[in-house]
């Protein structure tokens, strides 16, 4: 977390991003987000706008996108609010990248349930492929980040890559997914366990078994 600082304000950064503006497409989305809030409360749209800006930066650089300072300033101007308030938001939430990331932002959950189910192996797998925590790999494809709980504990361990979750992973399954991504394919998202659809119990329900067939009234059995 300590390395989560905005990329330094250099003349190169200013030159590259100083003229950043929403494209017509993103502008429409941004204005739609702003329109959700009542007149005089446009600042409330700062989070969607930062996300849109990050996505547009991502498109322009063919990566997951990040928020250079000039872009943050642009969002502040767009919403007519002080830059420091926008920067507060951008530095608070982990989903806003303050430094450039690769094409695939591999966010491995390292919180207790995932750790108990083998997230250490997932980190090993990622590191073997040349990923380093908080840095873009040499081929520009990967950025590895360790994140805290993403709310998929029932299907731990899990990895979030860009906007998709991949759950019930083993090192081998993760390897397959990363291979597919490297080839430019879109692997199946969600759980990777064969026969499992979402986060239902493996091997059929263990409680309320009668409810599977029909609406069973348990009250008499209490």
């Amino acid at each position, binding site marked *: *977390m*300590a390395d*989560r600082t905005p990329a330094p*304000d250099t003349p190169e950064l200013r030159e590259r991003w100083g003229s950043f503006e929403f494209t017509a497409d993103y502008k429409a989305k941004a204005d739609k987000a702003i329109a959700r809030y009542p007149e005089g409360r446009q600042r409330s749209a700062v989070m969607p706008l930062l996300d849109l800006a990050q996505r547009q930066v991502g498109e322009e650089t063919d990566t997951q996108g990040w928020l250079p*300072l000039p872009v943050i300033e642009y969002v502040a101007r767009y919403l007519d*609010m*002080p*830059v*420091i*308030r926008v*920067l*507060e938001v951008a*530095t*608070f939430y982990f989903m806003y990248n303050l430094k450039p990331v690769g094409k695939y932002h591999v966010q491995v959950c390292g919180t207790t349930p995932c750790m108990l189910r083998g997230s250490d192996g997932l980190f090993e797998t990622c590191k073997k492929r040349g990923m380093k925590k908080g840095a873009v790999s040499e081929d520009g494809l990967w950025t590895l980040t360790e994140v805290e709980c993403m709310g998929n504990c029932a299907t731990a361990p899990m990895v979030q890559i860009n906007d998709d979750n991949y759950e019930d992973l083993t090192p081998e399954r993760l390897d397959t997914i990363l291979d597919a991504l490297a080839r430019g394919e879109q692997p199946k998202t969600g759980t990777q366990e064969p026969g499992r659809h979402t986060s239902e119990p493996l091997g059929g329900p263990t409680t309320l078994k009668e409810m599977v067939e029909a609406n069973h009234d348990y009250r008499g059995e209490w």
Partner: protein
Amino acid sequence: MPKVTVDGQEIEVPDGATVLQACELAGKEIPRFCYHERLSIAGNCRMCLVEVKPGPPKPQASCALPATEGQEIRTDSQMVKTAREGVMEFLLINHPLDCPICDQGGECDLQDQAVAYGRGGSRYHENKRAVTEKYMGPLIKTIMTRCIHCTRCVRFSEEVAGVDEIGALYRGEDMQITTYLEQAAQHELSANVIDLCPVGALTSRPYAFEARPWELKKTLSIDVSDAVGANIRLDSRGREVMRALPRINDDVNEEWLSDKGRYMVDGLTRRRLDKVWIRKRGKLQQATWEEAFKAIARAKPGKSIAAIAGDLVDCETMFAARKLLGAMGSGLLEGRQTGMDYPADNLAAMAFNSTFAGIETADAILIVGSQVRHEAALVNVRLRKAARRGAKVFVVGPQWETTYPAEFLGEDVSVLGNLPAEVAEVFDKAERPAVIVGAGGLAAGAFEPALALAQGWSREGWNGFNVLHTAAARMGGLMLGYAQKGGMAEVAKAEPKVVLALGADEVDWSAFDKSLKVYIGHHGDKGAHAADIILPGATYAEKDGTYVNTEGRVQFAEKAVFAPGDAREDWTILRALADALGVEVGFDSFAELQSAMIAEVPALGVEGLADLGPLPKAAKGGKGKGGTISYPVADFYLTNPIARASAVMQRCSAELARGEEILEAAE
């Protein structure tokens, strides 16, 4: 009016009061860091925990909890004691133990409350957090490791100053308070965050490692850097004023102080006049008091003597000079150095009649020719409050960066004669419309049309006509008759043989070529360079004095230190000069001088708002006199001789006003 019980004592509290306020009303001390009376409620330090019934069975943050009927509040239970100890232990986890080298030591909320409410020791053995220093400009020194994230500074700059520049970046343990890209805090009230900071994270840079609070002598004084008359406390050690701090006065400055009033005090020890100088063959040479008095007597002024009051002089000095001139048979008194010649026969038309506290309640404000931020930063705070309550603000004059929504109507005074219809409608409908005429407006001849406008919008029980002066001495000077009909031009036309310049540094002296210019003042500034005889006087910190602020509020300042070298309190110089000129002025001591002054101008004897009588009727046909407005304050940090002598103010001017890069000196 809910009734609550605090520690068994039943009290009635006003509607909308919080539990913390209820406890204070009951006389209980509630420790707090983030809560501040003049800022919004944040509730993030958790120090004000109390036990409240009915409610969840846990301590509650009293600052953010509204007091309701029938609440039973306990501030002395074991739960509260334990909670406070716990919060304090958490706060101290990451707070460094560097009190011995911390400038806040001795006046630190955390120190005091740790002693009063903390545990004996910490159970925390891990490494403490460290945070890098943030640059916040030449006035604020930061040691951010000491920060406890109360966010008072953030709320101050957002809510009071109206300049969003301080923020809290990152989250959790990594939270850091900083300005955007560590730019200097750029507004006129920035140093108030130093007072607000409950710990030593934000301290005063010029005052760093200078003194400890307990070795300072505190003197109650009045700020003279502008016409607001902010109540200040001068902290002095020995013969030197170490710092100026605001005092609480809800009618004047609340508890804020402009950066200039706070930091120009280091100018009190620089460029000081501490000897008598006489110009001989075009060159100023050191002399004695006797020589100087003889030289003035030799000029044989008779009736041909004038006195020009500067911006910083007190009423006593001006009155002593008036007495002296009166004894000589002259009435050539003038205080408006830059040549303004607005009519000054009616004092009510010269004052800020709505009062500072009153202007907060105005709902439509027309500012005519005043860069309020620079001319009276503390009035700008009030205007911002009014604007936040929904007041519409309009400005006539060149554009400046307001801290509230304001509409600029043009730079020419003639706008006042034909206001746009929608603007006029706002004022016609307003319950409390106010007009503020600044020095720029007065100089451009906006006085008559503005008065006419204000009278057109008069309301029962509300006086909306305000004049915002820029000089601390102005209102007192006008009360003492320091105004000629034609302003400075008339004084120059009279070609007085002797001109007494009472700290007058803004005068164009070329008009007084034939006069013997006697400068009685404290700083070697423009006035001293032009003078023929220099008599060293005392600054506002070095003499007792009465000041009248732009509202017409009479306030007394006390003497904090002695004037340096041969310098004397100004009234003694004028008294001795009377002897040299062989006239009788009728006072031999300061007390006699004061009682003579109060006998002639009774209003100056009573602290508080002076009764200045009713407003005059605006002259007909005063409308539409044109003139482009320009603001008198070119550089906020360098408006008076003390500030111009101050190294801190010069640096502020270079870095903040003119934007020069100043390399940080290696510390």
